[in-house]
């Protein structure tokens, strides 16, 4: 592999004024990746993200396991959003095998997926808080997310790695009395997250640190192919739950949140607003869910696709659109599985956003991309 630096985006030629800094992988503001930045004084002139520290070869491993045994390891990239990362894979396998899912299972999936989105967002919010030096904002979300983890644990049996979605429905039915507990917890949770406005979103220090930093214009957001909260913070109304509704999202009542500013503050606010919508969705889904019925279609052992076929399914995860491209060749194992994840797609925006920023703003901009390095590396 050549070491020559490419033109344009890449690092500039080093002269005396410009210093190269490695941020990460051991750095409180980097997560599981390295960001090579070049600074002139306090300003970033160029930035080159270096992911891959958690590249575990999920896609290669998926070619050696059959459709069902792929489930546990395909959810590992985002264990705190495991329902959502499995969702497109499961939808894709269902289309390949031609399975129709029972109505109750669809509602359970939506509830689990929305709970999981909140769990993910709360963790992200906690880390965003601690990156900005706001310890209370680490403690509050990290404590409150345990409420929803309890619910998911009741539902699926595991704290974070649920492996709950299977082709043909969900693994288990809801436990008895789940609806009441869920409603109570979600109502409390919604009340609780509204209080975050006072300590975090209306906090002048936070606004000073995040507002007007890392501005991504609408055109750039589209051109770079960003997704999820990054895209919606730049004024593009694109949420797959509305635009390409899967399962029962069509019948549920919610709205998408769009902000126009495109700065770090807007990007950090969108997931928080989304959580309130998630609470609405959960309440509505609990109301509309069929009270009884089967939750899983029984499959033959080792299901196979029909000949050479390919399918691309996508859902809206906590980090944006999450696509899964499955190629089947009629064997019990998939021929190729590709996860197109929101984190990887948003990463491309990082060099653009950091150029010209102060180094101190780097954590605020970087983590506002709603980026989870483990998922990006797969």
């Amino acid at each position, binding site marked *: *592999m*050549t070491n020559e630096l*490419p*033109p*344009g*985006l*890449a690092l500039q030629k080093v002269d005396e004024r410009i210093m190269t800094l490695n941020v990460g992988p051991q750095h409180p503001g980097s997560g599981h990746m390295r960001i090579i930045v070049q600074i002139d004084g306090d300003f970033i002139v160029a930035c080159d993200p270096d*992911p*891959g520290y958690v*590249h575990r*070869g999920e*896609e*290669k*491993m998926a070619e*050696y*396991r*059959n459709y069902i*045994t792929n489930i546990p390891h395909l959810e590992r990239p985002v264990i705190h959003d495991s329902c959502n990362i499995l969702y497109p894979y499961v939808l894709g396998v269902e289309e390949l095998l031609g399975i129709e899912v029972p109505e109750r299972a669809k509602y359970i999936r939506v509830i689990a997926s929305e709970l999981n989105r909140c769990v993910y967002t709360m963790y992200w919010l906690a880390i965003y808080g601690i990156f900005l030096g706001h310890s209370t904002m680490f403690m509050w979300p990290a404590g409150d997310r345990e409420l929803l983890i309890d619910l998911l644990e009741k539902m699926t049996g595991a704290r974070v790695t649920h492996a709950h979605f299977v082709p043909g429905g969900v693994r288990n039915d809801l436990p008895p009395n789940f609806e009441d507990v869920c409603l109570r917890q979600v109502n409390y949770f919604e009340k609780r997250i509204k209080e975050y406005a006072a300590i975090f979103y209306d906090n002048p220090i936070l606004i000073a640190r995040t507002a007007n930093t890392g501005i991504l214009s609408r055109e750039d957001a*589209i*051109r*770079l*192919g*960003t997704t999820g909260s990054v*895209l919606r913070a730049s004024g*593009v109304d*694109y949420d797959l739950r509305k*635009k*390409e509704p899967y399962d029962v999202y069509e019948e549920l009542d919610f709205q998408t949140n769009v902000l126009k500013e495109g700065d770090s503050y807007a990007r950090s606010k969108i997931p928080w607003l989304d959580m309130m919508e998630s609470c609405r969705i959960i309440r509505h889904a609990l109301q509309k869910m069929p009270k009884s019925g089967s939750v899983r279609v029984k499959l033959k*052992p*080792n299901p*196979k696709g*029909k*000949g*050479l076929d*390919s399918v*691309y399914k*996508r859902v809206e995860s906590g980090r944006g*659109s999450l*696509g899964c*491209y499955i*190629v089947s*060749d*009629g*064997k*019990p*194992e998939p*021929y*190729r599985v*590709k996860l*197109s994840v929101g984190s*990887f*797609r948003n*990463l*491309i925006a990082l060099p653009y956003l950091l150029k010209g920023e102060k180094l101190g703003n780097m954590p605020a901009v970087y983590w506002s991309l709603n980026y989870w390095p483990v998922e990006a*590396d*797969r």
Partner: protein
Amino acid sequence: MSSDSDNEPIETTSDVTPASTKSSPTPEKEIELPKFEKDLADKIVEKFNTRVKVAFVKPDRVRINVGRDDIKEVAEFLRDVLNFDHAESVSGVDYPQDKEIEVVYHLGSYTDSSLSRQILVLATRAQREENPIPGNDATKLPSLREVFYSVEFHEREIFEMFGVYFQGHPDNRRLLLPEDWADLPPLRKDFAIKGR
């Protein structure tokens, strides 16, 4: 764990049927093709005639196979005329039997609200080498980075995972694999993982 159960009707005894992706212009059964998607496919065929092949038209998904020389032109047409403005995902698929590596672009649109459900699958194939020297062999394709900016990191990933060099891509460095990786590109089918 693979082939213990005897399969029902034997459609494909060989593992992959290369013919079905490449040379079946339209699905055999002409039952209620989705209207919008059909129009979309027709527009492309009208412009490029025989140079593109419509592999399938499914609800919300249209797939076109293009030769490697035409892909840039087709992509520009898709961007300028049909309003597809970003690439959602770029995947490589290795077909050792055909001696080809397929690169599949999934294109979407944010700006055109009528296309928001649609994914246009643009596929092309590069020649596959038995003993690859990534970057220095015949496994090359024109890069789409100038057309769709968002493919930048995806194409870098394909280069290291399959050894497909993208001509015109400004930054063909390594992305995810370790710096000292000297083995075959790992997602090729002839790269065997431990114990399998």
